[in-house]
């Protein structure tokens, strides 16, 4: 780098300080911003191309990301960002989606992404009793009509819940979950497939205990019964596994993911206390691996993760949204309304 110092000197010698008249350029900008055309065609929540999402079990790691949310304005009211102390006292509902395909960030025809995992997280004002509710992806629900980026709308009607995301993107997934669960979502976080593996690796692996041998040719995962420390790649395979373990259903996969989330949460928590440098790296990787609406920021995330410890938050409570076989298609599920209302009650508190 030293050979650049003469060049740096030259640069400093050539540099001029900004003159006061630079303010004129600011006026050009604000004039343009006030032009009504600048507002035209704006949609409320997301930029165009918000289709790419990510894998689910990461929802786990998101438990640590989620706090960052607290610094964010409430998306529905577009209130400005509040200070940490203030925002940290607000209850929040967070939607976490994990999906397996990532489309181009701004492509006109992004690859259809499936939301493999759908999780609602409730952070109460005191942060003491965090609730995580998994929504089975096979759930048949009444899907609202969503506005697409090309100005057209999706057809409303009964369909599988994860279709909302592949058809209408994150905005549509938010709208659908809001309508199905009758809760308001303050923040949505999407986790990427590859990001999940990176997050696990940053933690130095995550321990899991297998009740039986696992041989899954589809993912290449071969593990004996007992305790294992899984690296990112294996953890991903494990989280997505549907065959060769449990009863092979989506519901048993959800249970496994919830256990795994708890393990990641504990591991991250332990790392935060025992190895702040590694933890900082973990946070950095995590921010890079998720997309969030509103967006997340590393410094805020760290402050929030730490505020979670301070409030002595206990291990989150994991449940699956109560459901039963769908009346019209026994291979699908439908919401068990009375029981679901009980589970979702805390999410509906102001």
């Amino acid at each position, binding site marked *: 780098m030293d050979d650049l110092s003469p060049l740096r000197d030259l640069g400093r010698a050539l540099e*001029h300080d900004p003159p006061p008249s630079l303010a004129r*350029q600011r006026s050009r*900008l604000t004039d*343009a911003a006030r032009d009504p055309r600048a507002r035209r065609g704006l949609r409320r929540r997301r930029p*165009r191309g918000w289709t790419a999402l990510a894998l689910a079990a990461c929802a786990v790691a998101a438990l640590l990301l989620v706090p960052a949310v607290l610094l964010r304005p409430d998306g529905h009211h577009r209130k400005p960002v509040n200070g940490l102390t203030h925002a940290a006292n607000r209850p929040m509902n967070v939607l976490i989606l994990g999906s397996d395909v990532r489309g181009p960030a701004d492509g006109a025809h992004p690859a259809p992404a499936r939301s493999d995992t759908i999780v609602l997280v409730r952070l109460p004002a005191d942060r003491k009793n965090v609730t995580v509710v998994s929504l089975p992806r096979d759930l048949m629900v009444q899907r609202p009509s969503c506005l697409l980026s090309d100005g057209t709308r999706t057809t409303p009607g009964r369909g599988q819940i994860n279709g909302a995301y592949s058809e209408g993107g994150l905005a549509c997934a938010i709208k659908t979950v809001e309508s199905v669960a009758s809760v308001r979502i303050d923040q949505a976080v999407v986790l990427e497939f590859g990001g999940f593996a990176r997050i696990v690796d940053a933690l130095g692996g995550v321990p899991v205990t297998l009740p039986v041998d696992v041989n899954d040719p589809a993912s290449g995962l071969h593990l004996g019964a007992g305790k294992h420390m899984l690296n990112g790649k294996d953890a991903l395979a494990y989280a997505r596994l549907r065959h060769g373990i449990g009863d092979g259903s989506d519901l048993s996969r959800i249970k496994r993911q919830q256990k795994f989330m708890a393990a990641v949460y504990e591991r991250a928590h332990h790392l935060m206390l025992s190895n702040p440098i590694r933890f900082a790296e973990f946070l950095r990787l995590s921010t890079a691996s998720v997309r969030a609406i509103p967006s997340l920021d590393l410094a805020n995330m760290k402050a929030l993760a730490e505020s979670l410890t301070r409030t002595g938050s206990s291990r989150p409570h994991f449940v699956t949204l109560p459901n039963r076989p769908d009346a019209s298609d026994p291979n699908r599920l439908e919401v068990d309304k009375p029981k679901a209302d009980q589970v979702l009650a805390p999410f509906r508190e102001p």
Partner: protein
Amino acid sequence: MTAPPAVTADDAELIRRSHDDPEAFAALFDRYAGMLYRYVSRRLGPETAEDLVGDTFLAAFGGRRRYDLSQPDARPWLFGIVTKIMARHHRREAAHYRALRRSPVDGPDDGPADRVAAGVAAWASRAELAGALAALPGRDRDVLLLVAWGDLTYEEVACALSIPVGTVRSRLNRARRKVRAAFGGVDPTAADPAAEEG
């Protein structure tokens, strides 16, 4: 709820906010207009810098929906835009450096006599350096100056110019070799006759 200070939001957050509230984008101007002005004034002189910074922010504002909101730091993006806009002025830029060869402007080295003397010697070299900058192909010069004057990392340069990091490295190496040669070829690794064109 009290109004929060906008300065606590990162760049991506400001840009996201500007989707719904276009005037929020002005905060980005307040944050980076000075930095860009200094950078442009180095490359093109102060006369054009002002308008060019204004053009850059207008272009950025127009393209704010294409900004990747997962990037908290908007500097690479803004430097990318200003680089594109400056490319239209490449002749002026070369002339700016060449003018320096003929009549070096007063350096910042006014002061004790020994420093002034050292400054004179430095200016002789600087004139050579400026000549070498003027002779660089635009693409190589962009990379070199984004690193040396814009203080971007290689990854940030890659992001600003939408080129792979490997390309950043190769362009930077090539540019450095030529600049080093102009500076007297002090670096033995630059013992490449082809690079001795000055």
